């Protein structure tokens, strides 16, 4: 039986005057891979970044509505975003390893959290989980920037895993990678989903179909008055149903490739 990890109601995000996305309502369930799909500019990344309060880092961002994490309102003023991010990790679109050694990259999070003794163990476990251990075990001290793009992204995943989060958010993690590297990361996601809850934003519809358990389809609606586009959530369902028998016509047009 799956439990909801996140409950989102009437979530809207604006950057200054511009409303990026409105009235999102959904639930994310544990030990599942949920994919946000849809054309560009419809707010998928914006919504994703609400789950770990990364939008706090953008000055003009305003978040309205509610996101509950195990029943706790994430945007309650008493909640410390630093603690939120320890439990809800993130992997970014372009690999962004620190200019330090491979070991130090993975060890950074645990070190900061106060772990001193079992660092070697933690690093090895995280690298194994990210399917990178065999390739780097002999050169843990070498610079992370010497790795290939695909390896760097797996390193970033290992780094995120090292703090032992419950949820991993992925923002188009394969868009900067070649098909082989992409395939390895998709396999990785399948392997670890039994221990984590994963939410992934992807531009690649086939990837969503391959990998995810549930899909949320976003699109934009044009505001005639202000001539802007605001993102909306059109449909949210189990993946098989979304791709074989979608409820909304816009979803059907997207998944059958008629546009986007």
């Amino acid at each position, binding site marked *: 039986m799956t439990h909801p990890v996140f409950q989102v109601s009437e979530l809207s995000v604006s950057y200054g005057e511009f409303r990026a996305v409105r009235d999102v309502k959904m639930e994310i369930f544990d030990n599942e891979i949920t994919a946000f799909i849809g054309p560009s500019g419809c707010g998928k990344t914006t919504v994703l970044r609400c789950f770990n309060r990364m939008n706090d880092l953008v000055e003009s961002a305003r978040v309205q509505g509610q996101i509950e994490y195990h029943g706790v309102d994430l945007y309650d003023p008493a909640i410390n975003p*630093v603690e939120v*991010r320890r439990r809800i990790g993130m992997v*970014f679109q372009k690999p*962004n*390893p620190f200019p*330090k050694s491979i070991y130090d990259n993975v060890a*950074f999070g645990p070190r900061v959290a106060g772990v001193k003794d079992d660092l070697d163990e933690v690093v090895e476990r995280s690298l194994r989980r990210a399917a990178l251990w065999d390739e780097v075990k002999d050169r843990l001290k070498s610079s992370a920037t010497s790795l290939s793009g695909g390896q760097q992204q797996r390193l970033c995943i290992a780094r995120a895993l090292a703090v032992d989060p419950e949820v991993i958010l992925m923002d188009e993690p394969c868009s900067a990678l070649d098909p082989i590297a992409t395939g390895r990361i998709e396999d990785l996601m399948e392997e670890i989903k039994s221990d984590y809850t994963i939410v992934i934003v992807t531009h690649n519809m086939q990837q969503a179909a391959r990998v995810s358990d549930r899909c949320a389809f976003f699109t934009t609606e044009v505001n005639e008055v202000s001539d802007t586009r605001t993102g909306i959530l059109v449909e949210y369902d189990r993946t098989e149903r979304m791709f074989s028998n979608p409820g909304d016509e816009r979803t059907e047009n997207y998944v059958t490739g008629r546009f986007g």
Partner: protein
Amino acid sequence: MALTVPQLLGPSLREQLSGTSRRQRRETVVKTALRASAALSILISVLIVLSLVREAWTFVSQVEWATLLDDGWFPRRGLYDVRTLVVGSLIVAAIAMAVAAPLGLGAAVFLAEYAPPRLRRMLKPILEVLAGIPSVVLGFFALTWISTEIVQRVQDDAPQSNLMAAGIGVGILTIPLIASISEDAMRSVPSALREASYGMGARKLTTTVRVVIPAAVSGLVAAFIVAISRAIGETMVVFIAAGATGGSLYTHDPFEPGQTMTAAMAAQAAGTDAVRGAALTFQSLFFVGLLLFLITLALNVAADRVVRRVRQKY
């Protein structure tokens, strides 16, 4: 003007394409003139080295080495204790760095990482404009205000002119330099790295100290080296505020008047009867100048190396 087929294929086409026209010739003239301008800089360096080395060699070959070990730099009397000058330069540079490094670096970190964008946009230009304050102004300020308000409060019996006041003055002069270079270094750290750190639940202090500053460290070191070089090469603050005019006893007490390599050169040349005195007074000027040139050259080459390594990393 349409060309006919015979015109297009005839020998005149070849001429047209090889173009030895007036335009081409002007092009060559311009290029030569510009090349000469560039070569001029090499000429300048050569001249500097030549003019220094010639007289410095006279000094080195004719000086009685014993006088270099005697106490005190009194060139007009034939006492050439270069040690006094070098120690003086080091003391002033050390005091200057002790003042400028924490203030400059602290201000830079604040502006780069903590200040709201509008504040930074307002303050950075102000700092850059203040970097242009001439050193004579700081020299006067050091003599009158810094010496009275700061130095003499710390040590009552310090004379009005002392190395400490000069050192603090040079430090103040160098703060905008350190702040500017450091801030640029930190701002050029890609924001993707900061995001990665925050994404793992690190707080701002951790991200700044453990991610941003280490990533910018080459730029920070370069800033520091450039600042030291500037501090050693600074003349007027010491000349006005550190008190030694014709000569100076050896001292390593910053609360005493003292002399640096740079101010010694100026002191020799100042006055109505410049560079007249005991036999090698004139040449000692060049010797000190050569020493100074070599030291600052070494520092600048080091700073340049460091900066080049940063560029390769990103």
